[in-house]
């Protein structure tokens, strides 16, 4: 087991710089998820850690040891690939044992570990099959088995669940989580699915265009997204974003959001006149709120324990509201909609998070008119 340190890591293909100045500390025993939209460099980063891709700048250290020039085979890590990459010409047993034999492990030890892995993953009946005789879920287990027999310091997962159907994905997610609980080894897990990230990670790294947007626990990311991108990326259903114009009104700053009455903002360390205010669908109140307006329900999505309403404001913007339990709303209905200032996330014109300096003041009832 080992921690991992990235210092100023960069990657370029010729003149094309795709990653620059990346710094990251991964703690020993952590389940770190790299998440981001496709093309954000998360797989490349994982492959750089694995040693499958050269780094052009900086250093990568595993367990305190710089591994820049160490080939993948000597980094003492294992990796589960999106396509599983099982050796098609070998049986399951051979697939599991192959890596161990490469490290010249005694036969008895190989057999012990393979048996152990097979037991953990419940693939014992499959040991003599070839990969093409396996179902997707079975292949996935074998791929994981191949990773765990090595007893590596570090596990790398490259979107391992993306080829599975939804049901199987949920099941495997749970199994991976319990595997992590059992092994306690450092794991780095790449996915584009923020639900996977939220459910499994001890910490999440959100990447965009080769840059780290935020690192933090799932809660941190959810409750205090550091920028608009993270706010938009983490959380499902997606956060509502409202463009606000700010003007000074004496001591106070007033915000104007299309469709709402102007309201006073808490103290924010910015002089930008255009902010973005975000509110999670769960915090959007249908039927009131400190700041309120009216909207027309365009669509009702009934999800069982919650109901999702798509509410169009007069301005045309559609907001999402998530309501617990069953609600008797119909499409076409006009409803009041609003939010409380305490639930707002504030972002400046460059998309960076702003922390309110004091508790939100009383709503600005005095301010009249709505746009």
């Amino acid at each position, binding site marked *: 087991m080992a921690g991992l340190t990235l210092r100023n890591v960069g990657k370029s293909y010729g003149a094309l710089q795709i990653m620059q100045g990346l710094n990251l500390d991964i703690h020993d025993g952590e389940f770190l998820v790299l998440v981001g939209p496709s093309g954000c460099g998360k797989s490349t980063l994982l*492959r750089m850690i*694995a040693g499958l891709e050269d780094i052009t700048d900086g250093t990568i250290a595993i367990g305190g040891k710089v591994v820049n020039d160490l080939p*993948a085979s000597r980094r003492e890590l294992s*990796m589960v690939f999106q396509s599983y*990459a099982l*050796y*098609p010409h070998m049986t399951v047993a051979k697939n599991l044992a192959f*890596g161990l034999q490469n490290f010249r492990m005694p036969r008895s030890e190989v057999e012990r570990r393979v048996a152990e892995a097979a037991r953990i993953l419940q693939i014992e009946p499959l040991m003599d099959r070839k990969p093409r005789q396996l179902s997707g879920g079975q292949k996935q287990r074998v791929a994981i088995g*191949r990773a765990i027999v090595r007893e590596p310091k570090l596990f790398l997962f490259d979107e391992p669940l993306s080829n599975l159907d939804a049901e199987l994905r949920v099941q495997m997610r749970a199994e991976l989580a319990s595997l992590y609980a059992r092994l306690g080894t450092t794991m780095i897990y790449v996915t584009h699915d923020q639900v996977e990230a939220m459910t499994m990670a001890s910490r999440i790294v959100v990447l965009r265009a080769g840059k780290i947007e935020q690192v933090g626990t799932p809660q941190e990311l959810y409750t205090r997204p550091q920028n608009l991108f993270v706010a938009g990326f983490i959380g499902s259903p997606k956060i509502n974003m409202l463009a606000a114009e700010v003007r000074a009104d004496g001591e106070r700053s007033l915000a104007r959001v299309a469709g709402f009455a102007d309201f006073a903002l808490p103290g924010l360390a910015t002089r930008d006149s255009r902010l973005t205010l975000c509110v999670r669908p769960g915090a959007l109140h249908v039927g009131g709120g400190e700041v309120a307006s009216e909207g027309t329900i365009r669509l009702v999505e009934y999800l069982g324990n919650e109901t999702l309403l798509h509410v169009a404001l007069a301005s045309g913007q559609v907001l999402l509201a998530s309501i617990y339990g069953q609600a008797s709303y119909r499409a076409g209905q006009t409803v009041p909609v609003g939010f409380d200032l305490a639930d707002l996330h504030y972002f400046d014109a460059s998309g960076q998070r702003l922390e309110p300096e004091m508790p939100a003041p009383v709503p600005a009832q005095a301010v009249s008119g709505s746009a």
Partner: protein
Amino acid sequence: MSLDDATRLAHDLKLRRLRRERNGRLMKHAFLIGVSCIMLYPLLWLLSASLKPENEIFGNIELWPSAFQFQNYTKGWHALPESFTIFYVNSTIVTVLSVIGNLLSCSFAAYAFARLRFTGRNFFFALMMMTLMIPYHVVLIPQYVQFLQLGWVDTYLPLVVPRFLASDTFFIFLMVQFFRQLPRELDEAAMIDGCSPFKIYWAIILPLSLPAMGTAAIFSFIWVWEDFLAPLIYLNDIKSYTVPLALRLFLDQEGQSAYGQMFAMSVLSLVPVVIFFVLFQKLIVRGIATSGMK
């Protein structure tokens, strides 16, 4: 869709497919047999020519000989100053060594071109392709001079050594195309499993490329076995002649030729090739569909 529906649909599909396949199979066989006849004609003709009296070989399109000249075979075997036994041994030595050389050296180079990253890869690949394009006849003489200076003329070295040095670039290109088809994640998985590049080549790429290797082995065998230009230039001693070279001893432009015997020996010279073909074509069939992993 319920499970029952699914089973029924699958069953239906299967029945339909079976029915269509049976009809299709019959038609296919009929077609293939027809084509086979056209394909077999030259061999039958050759066989019949090898059994015909000399004056029936030409002008007479009848396949059935008026009298069977089996002595074309027995006499042909010993018609030349050395018996064909020697020529077969020689051909076998040259061919077997060449096939081994080709498979080893070309798969090495192909693995490098298809899988490894190194400076100048495209440049070297272009150079390699160039050697495929140059008409052989104009390098014949410089090559002869070169081997002469090495003292290799009148030995098998000029025929065998280049093949251990990947001179038949056709096979490199062939293998490159097949290697590139294998999922790269297999190499990467193997890398992480502690494989050196050589181990990846040996334990992953080669076993997964049996169809390509089988194809290369077959071509290599056939081409070396049938090659006569290089043996013609480099072999002087009739005791070292290969079978195709020996076949060239039968014909005289102006004087008496022994066509019947030559054809008889030509028929026999095909036997090892056909045997090799039948043995190695199984490799092609046994290929593993690796690209179906996604």
